[in-house]
Each structure stands twice: as C-alpha cells, then as structure tokens.
C-alpha cells in the first residue's frame, strides 16, 4: 500500500514496494525503486536511478541521488547514474547523497551529511552530522564516523574503524594540484578528535591517532601516535581504563556495542567465523 501526502510528484517507471509512506512535497524521479516498508518524510527529492532497500527511512529535506556535474554542464542532459542504498537505512534530515555510489545495509547518517559520487560504503556504517565524504573513496563495514569528519577523495577506510569528530583526511600533497593521493586506514584503527591525516598516509590496524595529531608518516600497527608531526608514543596495549586500571585495547576485546560480536564477545564471534580475514594478535 502506498500512502502519500500532498504536492508529491512521481516520475515514470517508479517501483513501490509494500507499505510505503510518503510525506508532503516529495519528488520521485524516473526509474526509482523503493523497497518494502519505506518511509519518505517531507520535502525530499529522490532523483532518477535510486534504489532504496527495505525498511529505509529518509527524513525531511534530503536529496537522494543528487545530480553529478554532467547534469549541470549539459543543462539537464545526463548519462544514467545510479545510487543503491541497502536495507534498513536511516538517513536523517538535510542529508545529500550524490548518485553513482553504492551503500550497504544498516546505513545511518546524522543531519546535514554530504556524500559525493563514487563512494562505495559497506554495511553497518554510521556517518555523523555534518560529515563530508568527498567521493571516489571506499569505506568498509562497521565504520563509525562522528560529527564533522571530512573524508577526501581516494581515501580507503577498512572495516571496524573509528573516526572521531573533526578529523580530516586530506589528499593533495602540494595543494592545489591535480594529483590526489588518498590515505588508507586499516581495520580496527582509531583516529581521535581533530586529527589531521596528511595525503597518502597508511594508518595500520589497531593503532590510535591521538586527538589533534597531525599524521605525516605511516602509523605502525598497535602504535599510539600524537603531536604535530605525530610521533610514536607507545604500544596501544599499554593504555588503561583510568578508573579501573584495566586494559582497554585492542578495543575489539573490550567494546561490543553495535558490533557483530555484541553479547558474545569478540573471541567467540571470531572463532565462529573460521576465516583468516581479520588480522588478530
């Protein structure tokens, strides 16, 4: 069943799943596919070529499948562009997601998030308010970005990475230039508030970039770096809970909320996987 509010306009070849609720002032362009149980709130534009998975909510004032530059350059004529967002997405108000991207399941944004084209984003990713993903980048599963994170083009972020507020991943080694070099953040790394990652850095797994650090060279596995320029301080496994003195890193053994090993613990979960896909020491 489709329930739609006033002042809505739907294009050609729009596919509606079951139990769709659409608010007021919604434009859905041609060749859009909505899965089952989708909620589209008010004042939203869903552009041509968008597919939204089942159980998705798009909050007010979003543009999903925003035009790429060719639309503006050619005054409305464009090649076909596509955006796919998987099941169980929650896209909060003010968010703009460009076309030509692919986003997995259980995706969640804060408010006023901007995600540009050619972004490949995995499952269970959350992108906080005011984040700006510049596109042409790859983000893995279970990545957590807090508010106002800036991800430059050509960035690669592997699974289970935490990026805290106001972090910037830069990509231009000699700005301004045409040669962009993205950084690579490996699984289980943590980048703390306000850190700046210079172009082409590799932040290896289970490392911690301290708040405010400016990373100008690769960060080794299990390394804690801080300062400007960031320097190795110690092995992360020495960091302790300040109240109890207990170990807290590698964090996957001590933190579960929202992770696939929630309620079972990382070791038990990993043992069940029976794969060598995740580095573990």
């Amino acid at each position, binding site marked *: 069943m489709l329930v739609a509010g006033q002042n809505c306009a739907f294009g050609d070849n729009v596919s509606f799943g079951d139990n769709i609720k659409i608010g007021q002032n919604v434009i859905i362009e041609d060749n859009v596919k909505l899965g089952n149980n989708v909620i589209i709130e008010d004042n939203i534009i869903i552009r041509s070529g968008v597919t939204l998975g089942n159980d998705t909510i798009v909050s007010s004032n979003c543009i999903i499948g925003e035009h790429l530059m060719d639309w503006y350059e050619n005054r409305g004529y464009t090649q076909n562009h596509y955006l796919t967002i998987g099941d169980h997405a929650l896209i909060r108000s003010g968010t703009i997601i460009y076309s030509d991207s692919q986003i997995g399941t259980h995706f969640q944004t804060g408010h006023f998030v901007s995600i540009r084209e050619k972004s490949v984003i995995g499952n269970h990713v959350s992108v906080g308010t005011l984040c700006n993903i510049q596109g042409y980048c790859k983000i893995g599963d279970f990545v957590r970005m807090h508010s106002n994170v800036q991800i430059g083009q050509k960035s690669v972020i592997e699974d289970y990475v935490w990026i805290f507020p106001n972090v910037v991943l830069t990509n231009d080694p000699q700005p301004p230039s045409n040669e962009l070099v993205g950084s690579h953040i490996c699984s289980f790394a943590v980048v703390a508030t306000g850190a700046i990652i210079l172009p082409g850095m590799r932040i290896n797994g289970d490392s911690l970039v301290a708040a405010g650090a400016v990373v100008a060279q690769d960060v080794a596995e299990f390394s*804690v770096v801080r300062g400007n320029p960031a320097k190795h*301080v*110690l092995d992360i496994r*020495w*960091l*302790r809970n300040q109240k*109890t*003195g207990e170990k807290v890193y590698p964090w996957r053994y001590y933190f579960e909320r929202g992770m696939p090993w929630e309620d079972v613990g990382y070791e038990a979960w990993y043992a069940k996987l029976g794969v060598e896909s995740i580095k573990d020491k």
Partner: protein
Amino acid sequence: MEQNLLSVINEILTDKNGAIIETLNGNMSLRKDLGFDSMDLAVLTAKLDAEYGIDIFEDGIIDTVEEVLNKLG
C-alpha cells in the same frame, strides 16, 4: 630506584615539552602534580615494565609517587 623513577618521569615530561622536576616527593600525584594524562601514565607503565618487569597498574590504578615506588619494591 627513586632516582631512576625521577629520570623516567623527566623523560616523559621532556617529551611533552613540560618542565622537568628536581626531586620527587612521595605524596606527589602523577595526575594532579605532574600533569600526566592517560597516555603519559601508559608510557610510564611501559618504561617501568621494560626496566623492572613490573606492571605498576596491574592491580588497579595508583596515583602517587610513593605508590609507584612501593609497587616497584
């Protein structure tokens, strides 16, 4: 041992661009008097463990110089 601890503490303070101290007082708080944050405490733990084979935080958080010296024996 106290001199050695003083030396280690001053290494950490120097790395932080902090002012070194001349002497230790048993009542000195690592956090409040020396200004150590969680990372500094971890560095202290790692350095003392490397030298003495003792994890000073193994049995819980300690705070004063005297407590550190007692842990080191």
